[in-house]
């Protein structure tokens, strides 16, 4: 029972409109015992929410952004470049931002003890990457296209090919962990995680597009995916800039 008649406190319907999925989405079985069920408490945005980390000065190695060169040999699979811009909700580039990714290998198997899918582990692929955005907000990874894999959500359930992304933005309220998908995946209509986002346009914003301009001739295909960050309290904060 959060609100008790004070002036600013409100509670928000968990089913509120917005691009994010609701917590409570029973088709995704994992939500049933984990989704918060009670209304969220709305509080005014304070300095605690208007600030946050960006890790823009992190010592990121060159190989951190190239998942195909982190081992002795080359991983199996279809080599791809994934690149795009990270923007604030005001359309401005978010520069010097840490972008972290993780993914399954080309066979659809994660390098993780909990993943027991009967598909081969690739000794030349860990599936973890990170980079910093440049001054125009661009990130860029070289990797292999992750495979689809079965999961126990319902009979014959398969996840569409996806790469997990983690981003910080300019404030605590910008924090985002999400998944990037690939165009034309036949598994979209069967995937409750993808379909937990009710707005079709918002769902489509998670799908990268093939970009011939990003391909590396005779080496890798290219996919473009832009990311826009901003929470409910996305008050623009001036970043130091040169102009």
């Amino acid at each position, binding site marked *: 029972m959060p609100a008790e008649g004070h002036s600013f406190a409100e509670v928000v319907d968990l089913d509120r409109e917005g691009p994010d999925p609701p917590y409570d989405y029973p088709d995704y079985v994992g939500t049933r015992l984990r989704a918060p069920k009670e209304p969220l408490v709305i509080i005014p945005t304070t300095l605690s929410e208007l*600030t946050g980390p960006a890790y823009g000065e992190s010592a990121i190695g060159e190989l951190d952004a190239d998942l195909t060169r982190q081992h002795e040999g080359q991983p199996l699979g279809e080599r791809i470049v994934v690149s795009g811009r990270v923007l604030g909700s005001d359309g401005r580039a978010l520069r010097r931002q840490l972008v972290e990714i993780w993914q399954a290998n080309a066979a659809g198997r994660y390098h993780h003890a909990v993943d027991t899918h009967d598909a081969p582990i690739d000794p030349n692929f860990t599936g973890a990457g990170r980079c910093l955005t440049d001054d125009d907000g661009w990130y860029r990874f070289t990797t292999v296209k992750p495979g689809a894999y079965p999961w126990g959500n319902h009979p014959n359930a398969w996840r569409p090919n996806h790469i997990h992304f983690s981003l910080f933005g300019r404030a605590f309220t910008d924090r985002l962990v999400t998944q990037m998908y690939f165009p034309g995946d036949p598994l979209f209509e069967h995937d409750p995680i993808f379909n937990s986002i009710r707005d079709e346009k918002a769902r489509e914003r998670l799908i990268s597009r093939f970009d011939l301009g990003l391909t590396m001739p005779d080496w890798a295909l290219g996919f473009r995916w832009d990311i*826009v960050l901003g929470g409910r309290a996305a008050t623009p904060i001036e970043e130091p800039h040169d102009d």
Partner: protein
Amino acid sequence: MTEIPGLTPSQTVGPYLAIGLTRDLITPRLVDPADPRAIRLHGTLLDGAGEPVPDGMVEIWQANAAGRYAHAADDRAELPLEDGFLGFGRSGTVDGGHFEFVTVKPGCVPWPGGGLQAPHLEVSVFARGLLKHAVTRVYFPDEAEANAADPVLATLGEEARATLVAVAEDGGLRFDIRLQGPGHTTFFAV
């Protein structure tokens, strides 16, 4: 609440977040444990059946001991920044749902329009089954006076307020997070 078009929606971290997120770069250690101010903040992430969540992650964000955030939006130059203290940490929950941080108690930070908030940490909870991370706050049990005057705590009922105050235990602070069910943690919309 105006919807801004074009925002990228959230998706769950899934069960394999440890591959990408709890490696070497961002750790649960915000200060050296030998720091005389260091406190151990720990707890268990629990689901609606009271079972530990062993594939989740907890992040904290906080001001330094003087109450200053290491961020451009906190321009109160009269308060010191501390070299090497960013105020952010991450802990996985692979150890039976248990998470643990070493940090310092932050100072008070301002409330919009005047006054102060009691010392607190912002907390983000991620897990398989959470389509969007859940946000809560940790307050400190030895700050009864500041907590009583805190504008966020003041809006909450007794039971909801109690879920946000850590418990002093064995020289550390314990803060369990219950995602749903009896005694569930109070979560905020951000």
